[in-house]
Structure formats: structure tokens, C-alpha cells
């Protein structure tokens, strides 16, 4: 099938690019838009490193056909930082030693964002359930959990200050 011009809304910016329907969202992000923060590992939806948010929901971009999310709001790891200011979740991951090799980190942070947007005060059990689709081989997840709880607190405090 010939390539088609399709509009994507990624990290708040609209891109109009030529894609084949057989391209996954992950390919479009990495190869067409140069957003290499989202990674490829298992390719079959078991590891979560390719996690991005589509309309606020965590999805495996390696199992999403790009054409099916045209016009939807897509958020990747690159979209979290505002200028030079890290998102509280990113800051919490850094401060709590939740990053070792870093390969699972973008996907982890995106899943954490989806969780905290929906449940600002998650219990440890809720964190486990929300993060069970993101594998990490380095950290044992302990500091990742700690970081998510800390980020929840920071976001709450930020809300209080703003509100």
C-alpha cells in the first residue's frame, strides 16, 4: 500500500508525515520523528519498554498501528520535561535511585504517569497492578515503587501550591 499523509499530535505538537499503514506507532516515533526515547525490546507486548500514553492511557507502541492513533493525543517521555524543568516523576526516579541501565525507564515513567493521573494517591498494591506490564532486570523494582510514591506526594504538594 502506498504511503499516506497522516497528522499526529505528539507531545503537544502536530506533525504531518507520510507513513505506511503497516508502521507501528513505535516506528513512527523513533524513525520518522526522531523521538528515540521510547524503546523497542520484546516487540510482543510483554515488557512495556515501548509504553507511551494515548489520550492518557498507557499502551504498547510496538503493538499499535500508527494510523489508528492519528489525531489522538500522544505523550512520550520527551514530552514530560518542560523546558529545563523535569516532571516530578522524572525527578523522583532520579532522586530515589530508581534508574540503573535506564532502558526500562522511559516506559516505566510513562506507566507511572498514567497511574498517577488516574489515582493520585495509589497504594503499593495499586502501584504493583499498574506497573505489572513494565519489566526491569536491574533494579528489582523497589526504588521504582519508592519513586512513584514520592512523586505522588510531590504532585499533591504541587497541586496544593497551585490550587
Amino acid at each position, binding site marked *: 500500500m502506498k504511503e499516506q499523509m497522516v497528522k499526529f499530535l505528539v507531545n503537544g505538537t502536530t506533525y504531518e508525515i507520510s507513513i505506511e499503514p503497516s508502521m507501528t506507532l513505535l516506528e513512527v516515533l523513533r524513525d520518522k520523528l526522531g523521538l528515540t526515547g521510547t524503546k523497542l525490546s520484546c*516487540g510482543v507486548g510483554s515488557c512495556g519498554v515501548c509504553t507511551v500514553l494515548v489520550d492518557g492511557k498507557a499502551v504498547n507502541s510496538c503493538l499499535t498501528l500508527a494510523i489508528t492513533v492519528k489525531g489522538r493525543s500522544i505523550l512520550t517521555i520527551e514530552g514530560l520535561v518542560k523546558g529545563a524543568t523535569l516532571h516530578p516523576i522524572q525527578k523522583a526516579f*532520579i532522586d530515589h535511585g530508581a534508574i540503573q541501565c535506564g*532502558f526500562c525507564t522511559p516506559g516505566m515513567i510513562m506507566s507511572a504517569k498514567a497511574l498517577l493521573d488516574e489515582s493520585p494517591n495509589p497504594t503499593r498494591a495499586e502501584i504493583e497492578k499498574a506497573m505489572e506490564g513494565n519489566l526491569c532486570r536491574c533494579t528489582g523494582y523497589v526504588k521504582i515503587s519508592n519513586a512513584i510514591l514520592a512523586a505522588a506526594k510531590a504532585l499533591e504538594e504541587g497541586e496544593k501550591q497551585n490550587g
Partner: protein
Amino acid sequence: MAEEFSVIGKTITQPDAVAKATGSALYAADIKLPGMLIGKVLRSPYPHAKILRIERTKAEKLPGVKAVITKDDLLKIAYTCSFRDLPMIRAGSLQRPDQFILADKARYVGDAIAAVAAVNEHIADEALSLIKVEYEKLPAVLNPEEAMKPGAPRVHDHAEGNIAGHYTYRFAQGDVEKAFKEADLLVDDTYETTKQVAAQLEPQAVIANYDATGSVTVWSPCQLPHLAKRELAHIFGMPAGKIRLINPFVGGSFGCRLSIYNEPICIALAMITGKPVKIEYTKEEDFACLETRTPARYHLRMGFKKDGTLTAVQLKLIVWAGGYAGRSQLVGNVMLIWGLGHYRCPNRAGEVYNVYTNTPMSGAMRGYGNPEIMWGVEQTMDMAAEKLGIDPVELRLKNILKVGELSNKGLPIESTALEKCIRMGAERIGWKEKRDRREKGGSRCRGVGMATAAQSSGGYPGLLEHSTALIKLNEDGSANLIVHPGSPGTNIWGALSQIAAEELGVFAEDIHIVTGDTDITMFDLGSHASRSTYVTGNAVLMATRQAKNQLLERASKRLEVSPAELETKDRKVYMRENPQKSISIAEIARDAIYGLDGECLNISGKCSWEPKSSPSPTAAFFAEVEVDTETGEVKVLKFITAIDSGRVINPTTVEGQAEGAIAQGIGFALTEDYVIHQGTGAVETNNFDSYKIPSIADMPETEIILVEEPDPTGPFGAKGTGELSLAGVAPAIANAIYDAVGVRIKEMPITPDKILEALERREVS
């Protein structure tokens, strides 16, 4: 103790954390070069086959294909992915150069037969499908029993009986047979451990470029970059100076990336096409082609006196190499060292056979044989404790090595806090209260179990050790530290920057790490054997000390006191007796560059450091489990690791390593099973959906206790730490299961099926 230091013992922001958290860290797959081609490898579908003919014309003619290579296009230079003829092995080379860039014969399902380079991935895929290989299938040996049978087909012509290596324990002493006869208790068991996969998240990806000057640049995740460069130079008959190896960010290794894999093929494609070539493995290729933990079957005998004193220990091991020897040659040998040297024992002997099989390659995974062998040693200790009527904690305390005795590597122990680790861990888990409960909560029984382990800080004395560090001061008082440990994500750069910062008297963020390029960095063996903190750390310390001496020399002229009266701290040089008399490090560094106090000098330091020791970090492991006796399911409720790794440079880093090790150990003991189809030889468990590593939902409550006992030879007293915290996890869980339900499973992984079967057998008997 941490109060003495400004930076050591603190948690710092890791130098690369922001890049990783924002997605800007570039791993090999993220790198694009102009004109870059995509390379792919055609792999054997058979475990053992001759290659009769390769029909490649159709593939070569496909538009967009720039190269198709087979073994006939390449010089037949044998090498080993784990680096042949290592001058590092003092005992003589164990390595077997038995590989070629493309296989001369298929020796496992996945062996590399041909390769293509094309302008995009679609075309590369299609080109592979157009290459027709005519194989002559040969009978295959898919496990060591088959391989060792008389008359079995030879995987390699040179290896009679498919033996890749046979080694005896180099620290053998006493007379084990006599001691076993005289022992009050003899415990005699066979254990089996599995082909655990590194299962790092980042698939193997390599880029190679060959320019008009005849120089090769290769972007590789290899953890031993200078050694890889050397091996690649050998394979291509090039001077080493013409090869430049760059490490991008690496997404985990756990030992699999000690070796090289697609680098030679990638370089060959780059040479032939004159363009940069990238080869990215699929995760399935990772599972089939990267070295895994070396599976072992061993017969372990331990003899004890009535009072629990260990008097004799013997190991007879068979380990599987797979289709090529690779790093399994070293691992089997080292298993003897961990297993036979862990406790005080006057009578010790052992031997290992490394066996070729037509299966994917085995090599080193975190622990380098230690987790494999502690699986058996620590369960046998547990069984001995029960038979002797001695508490398992007491049995360990009785036999652990003390200061002054010889370590598992035959070196005098200068520091150890293992006793403290054991006692603290036992107290924290509630050993006395929870032991022997056989707590009946309906069908659920709880138990606690323990294990201990000791590792090393570098490969001395078995391997030659060398790390060189270079540090230069910038005119703002910051410093660039040029080092090259491999960094697959261990946070070693943070630790090295803390060592340099403490010595120099600046903040951790003032140390900029310059690394990853063999053209810039001086020789470093790389990262293995938990060497980086200890060996590279000491090189960094000595290099920084040299720079500091230059700094003090210059400062002494300005402050008009002798250098011996000066100290550095908080970015200042100051007089010890009168701290008001001070000057900023920045000012001294800048003025030296511009010759304001004498000859122009860029203050710097360099040190090539060779250790004369390899102090053993030690640890005690405590697990609490709950076993459902109706379903056989095991839940690890709590896990405590008490670690003695000398001075802790960064507590968060050591904890993080230990927590990750608990996850890997739970996988090793309970959930990870690498299954090779016994008919086809293909890997059935070849991705994360079929090979299950623990997720966040499988983790217990954890506690990491850092017991600091500074080592006299480590940088600020630090010992190695990366591997140790894995070695005792699996046996502690096995021992806890025994405490809970009275069954002992010696084969891995411990599955609910096996527990139920064992419970039924016990009821019957």
C-alpha cells in the same frame, strides 16, 4: 563512619540519570549515521548441519541490497567471542578459539550462516528470505549426556568426546577421600542449575563504520571494550590502533556482554559496503545467540565433624558449553573456586568437564558460577545442619573464614564482616521466632531459610588486572575523569566520581566522566568480576592523588606554606592548622594553565593500577516464604540481604544492586526456565512472554543491610559489590521452602508441580 567523608557514603545524583529519565540517552539502536545500512543475519534452523551450498544471487540482485556475505567471503581466522589467548590467564590460556565470523558448520539453532546489508529493514528481511542454504543435517547432541556418550557425533573435530575443557581445582589440598572416611557426617548430593538468561531489556545492537583510511569504528555494548578491540583487530588482521570501539549507553548486561557477537559480522559488512552498518538483534536472537549462565550438573560431597566443623569438600562438575566454548571455559573453572573455597576446610578437591553440545552458547552471567554453585553448597550445609542437630546459622558461623585465613582465591583475608552480616540478618528476619514453625495457616505454611556467599573484587590472581585512569583539572575547578570501566548500567560512573571528588576535595558533580571511547580512554580491562569499584576505583584514587599533589604544590607557593600542611575540601585548598588561609581550587587550576605561578601546567594525574589482591565481599541472605501445600505455589514474603562490601561508596547504588539481585535470584530459583526442544534443538522460551522474569508483582518485602568494614586495600576501603548479592538468593529460598514444608528441591526452577510431587512422595514414604 560516613561522617568522616564529604562525598563517600552519600547518595548522589548519578551523572547519567537525567539523560536516562528524559529519554535523551542514546543506546546503540538510537544512533543514526548518514548513509547507514541495516544488517541482518541468516541463522541455521538446525542444531547440527554441514553447509553444502549457499545460493545468494537472488538476494544480491534485490534492489536496495548492498552486500551479501557468506563464510567464503571472509578470511578463516578462528577466534572466541570471549577473547582468545588472554594474556591475563596466569595459569595458561583456557580459551578455545573455535569460532569464525560466519560458521563453517552449523553448531546450534541460531548459528550465523550468512549476512546481508540493505538500505532498510524491509529489504534486509526480504534479502534473507531469498538466500537459499543447502544443509546436510547431522545427528545432534542436545545435552551433555548425549554428547559424552562413546561414539557421539563431534560438535568440533578437535574435541574428542566433545570435551571442550577439563580442569582440576587449583587450590586442592589435603586428602578428601581419607577425610570423608573419617567424617562423622557425610552429605552427598547431586544438583542441577539452569541456563539462566541475562534477559537484559536492551536487544543486542551494534554499528560499524569503515572509512577510507582503513580504520574501523564500532559502537558496541561490550563491557570489556579494550579487550574487544584487541580481539577484533586479530579477527580482521588489523593493527589494534586502527580499531576504535565506542560504548553508547548500554541497557543491561549481567555478564552476557562481556563477549562480542554481531560486531565482527557488522564490521565485515561495513568493510564490504564502505558504509556504516547497524545490526539490531530481535529479542529472540538475544535469547538464542547471547551467552547465558552456564548450566551445571554437579556432585557435591561435604564431610563434617559432629560439632559441625567442615572437614572435607569435593565437587565433580559437568558444565555445558553449547556449540562453542566461549566464556563457559572460564566459568566452570571458577565454579570450583567459589564452591570449594567458601568455608574453612583442610581437605578440598574438585574437577570440571566443559562439554560441547549443539545448543546455544553458555558463558558468564552475574556471579560467574557463584550462584550456580551456592545453590548446592548452601543446601548441603542446610541438610548437614539438620542431621547434626545444629542451627543453620550456627553451622555457618562455625565455618566461615576469618581475617588472616586464605580466601576462596587463596589470598589472605584482610577484612571480613560476614559474621556480623549473618547475625544482623538473622535478627532482622526473626530467625529464632520463625524457624521450625511449620506454621499451619490452613494449607499455607511459612518458613525461613538462609545462605551465605563470598565473591571477589576483580579477577586477580587468576587474571591479569589493569585499569588506567586519567584526571585533568579544568579552569573552573571541576575535573574531567577519563576512565573506561564498561558501564552496562551499574552506576559505576557515580561511584568513581565520588572517589575522585573525595580525594580532590570537590563535590561529586564537579567530576565530569569522560568515557566510552577507546581512542580517548586508556587501558581498562572493563567490567567483570566486580572489579570496577576496587580496581578502576583505586586507579582513579591514585590518579586523583597525583593531581592533588600538583595542586598542593602550586597552592603552597601562593599560600606560602609547605604542601604537607595543606588539605582540600569543599572546592578549596586550605591550611590544616589555620583553615582561614585558603584559596579556591578553581583559582589554582586556572592560574596553573596560564602559567601565573610558574610554568604552564594543566594539573592532572594518571595512574595505571594493578592490584595485588582481590578482597572478597561477603553477604548473608535470609528468605521468608509461604508455601501453599495444596497448589504448591511459593510466595517469597520477605528477603533480607546483609552485605559486607567494605566501605560503601554510595548506599543507594549498593542497595539497588542487591534489590535487583533479589529479583534475579527469585527468577533463578522459581520462575526462569530456558527450554530447548529436545527434538529440534530450538529455544522454546525465546522472549519475555515465554521466559518469565519477575515483575513488580512478584517482589517480596525487602531489606538491605549494609555492614561496613573498610578493607585496607580498597579505595576508601571499598570492595567489589555488583555480583555478590545474587549468589545466595536462590539457595536461601530453597532452604526456606524446606523449613516451611519439609521438601527439598535440588533442580531448578522450583515449580509448584515439583513441590506437590515432593510432598506426595514424602507422605507416601
